[in-house]
């Protein structure tokens, strides 16, 4: 029963989802399009608790046992605690709203310090606000106490100010709140750093891939160079005749390797160069002719023909693989995913 039930559930939901796409019936359509995915989201949300608890347990054990790299585990726990606090416990988004500022000369020095402006500039800001309107200090305060001290100062200076707290839930998206500050100034830069590392890894990986080891690697190197050069402006400025000369020399190198005969090689080099030069003089050396040797045209052909053909072959294989796997799961032929 423990095994049969999950397979039965997977098979039923799988069949409904698969064949529901062919049925014009609102209930089934709404189940396939909305309900089923919402169920999954709800399940995933609950599972998050399991994940979070597992993470804390693992890291705590590392710290307690002083395992290798335990300070990182301590940092992970601290980060988790901080995020949790900023998200669920501490609102961290209190703003100060000034409702009365007729005595702007005495309020301006206090306000100037809060909004990083000079006193004169702050006075100008206050002077253009129509009577009856309010002024809210944009950057919210992380603590109620911080906002309160500013309110007290403004009130003491003859103005009227109040504390406005952001709504729970909305506080994580409120610009300048504690959670939002953490997201913008800690999380985002760290993520960007990881992403930026990719540039260096691409370089090191490309270096290895482009090393000439065999025919395939050579082909990859040549196509890579053509694609890279053909896609940047400088590629358009390289004459097709220059590439033509390179091709002739490469062919001559091939002749040399194949026949291992100096005379043949000399004939190939001289004959080839002469043919290209004469052809160039006759046609007037147009930069983009012959088109087959013009890098932007050549890269376009490589990109849209051999590349697309290979990619489509892989995609058809992947499509069949996904379909066959799905059928295996739906029919209960493959049961390893439930631990059988």
């Amino acid at each position, binding site marked *: 029963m423990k095994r049969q039930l999950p397979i039965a559930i997977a098979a039923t939901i799988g069949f409904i989802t*698969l064949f529901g*796409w*062919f*049925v*014009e*019936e609102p209930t089934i359509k709404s189940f396939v399009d909305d309900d089923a995915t919402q169920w*999954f989201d709800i*399940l*995933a949300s609950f*599972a*998050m*608790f*399991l*994940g*979070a608890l*597992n*993470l804390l*347990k*693992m890291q705590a*054990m590392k710290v307690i046992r002083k395992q*290798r*790299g335990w300070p*990182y585990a301590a940092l992970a726990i601290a980060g988790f605690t901080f995020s949790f606090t900023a998200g669920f416990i501490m609102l961290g988004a209190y703003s100060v709203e000034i409702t009365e500022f007729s005595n702007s000369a005495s309020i301006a020095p206090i306000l100037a310090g809060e909004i990083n402006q000079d006193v004169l500039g702050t006075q100008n800001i206050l002077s253009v606000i129509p009577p009856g309107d309010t002024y809210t200090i944009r950057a919210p305060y992380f603590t109620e106490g911080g906002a309160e001290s500013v309110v007290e100062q403004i009130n003491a200076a003859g103005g009227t100010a109040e504390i406005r707290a952001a709504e729970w839930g909305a506080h994580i998206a409120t610009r300048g709140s504690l959670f939002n500050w953490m997201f913008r100034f800690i999380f985002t830069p*760290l*993520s960007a750093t*990881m*992403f930026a*590392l*990719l540039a260096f*890894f*691409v370089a*090191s*990986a*490309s270096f*290895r*891939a482009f090393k000439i080891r065999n025919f395939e690697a050579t082909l990859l190197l040549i196509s890579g160079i053509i694609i890279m050069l053909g896609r940047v402006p400088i590629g358009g400025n390289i004459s097709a005749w220059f590439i033509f000369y390179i091709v002739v020399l490469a062919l001559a190198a091939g002749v040399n390797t194949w026949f291992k005969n100096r005379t043949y090689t000399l004939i190939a080099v001289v004959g080839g160069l002469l043919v290209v030069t004469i052809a160039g003089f006759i046609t007037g050396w147009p930069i983009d002719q012959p088109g087959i040797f013009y890098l932007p045209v050549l890269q376009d052909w490589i990109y849209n023909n051999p590349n697309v053909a290979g*990619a489509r072959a*892989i*995609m*058809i*294989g*992947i499509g*069949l*693989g*996904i*379909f*066959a*796997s*799905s*059928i*295996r*799961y739906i*029919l209960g*032929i*493959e049961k*390893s*995913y*439930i*631990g*059988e």
Partner: protein
Amino acid sequence: MKDKQFWSVAGIIFALFMIYWFAGHPYFVAERSVMFWAILIVGGILIYSTRMAKRGEKIFLRSIPGLKAVEEAVGRSTEMGKPVLYVPGIVDMDQVETVAGVVVLGHVAKMTARYETSLNVPVARAIVMKAARESCRESYLIEGRPDLFHDDMVHYLTDDQFAYAAGVNGIMIREEPAACLYMGKFYAESLLLAETGNSIGAIQIAGTASPSQIPFFVTACDYTLIGEEFFAASAYLSQEPELMGGVKGQDYLKILVIAVTILATLFNFFHDLNWISWDVLGYLTVQ
């Protein structure tokens, strides 16, 4: 279910469906009928191949170096006394690649249990953690080594893509696993993981159906299971006739796809020349 019973039930269902079809098939989205029949045909071929394999038909699976290397990688880890790191992708169980990744994990866990090698599976989704844990537990049980299994060998890191990559990279640098296996759906983190694995000198095997990540894995890993090879991994590693039959079915389907592609190209060519009026592309395009 025995063959006779199975085909009888399938025949009855098909007959009932044909009655429904000829009765005007109410509620059916007619524009998608090509896709529907394609699914029936493809499904039929797969089921047929599976049942043939189950009946004892000999099935040849070509050698896949990447899958052969899995056991080598685990063996190498055993010799070096270092753990095996297994990354089942960064998406949830609603993606078939993740499911396939968990399935392969089960086979890898059997090997690590057999060789008494430490296995480390950091995951990016809590549901995947539960599924992967069950799969590993069962594998250790089947191999008769439940004592070697512990829940924390499959552990959750984070849902965030780059935080997860940073976490896994940290594990690689600190623990220096001798083998890193990446099987599942990956995005931009693929190269971050594979290059770090390369830098620590681990033997690396990747399997994915994410076309844009295949070049990165090919470059940075020792072996890469490309697309369908990845989905065939379970059959190859388990050598179970039912699963191998499915792989053979896929090969039949490839022949069918090639035939349909050639015929459609020809018909489209004739249509463009105004020799025939039937627009094959309009018919085959799924609405």
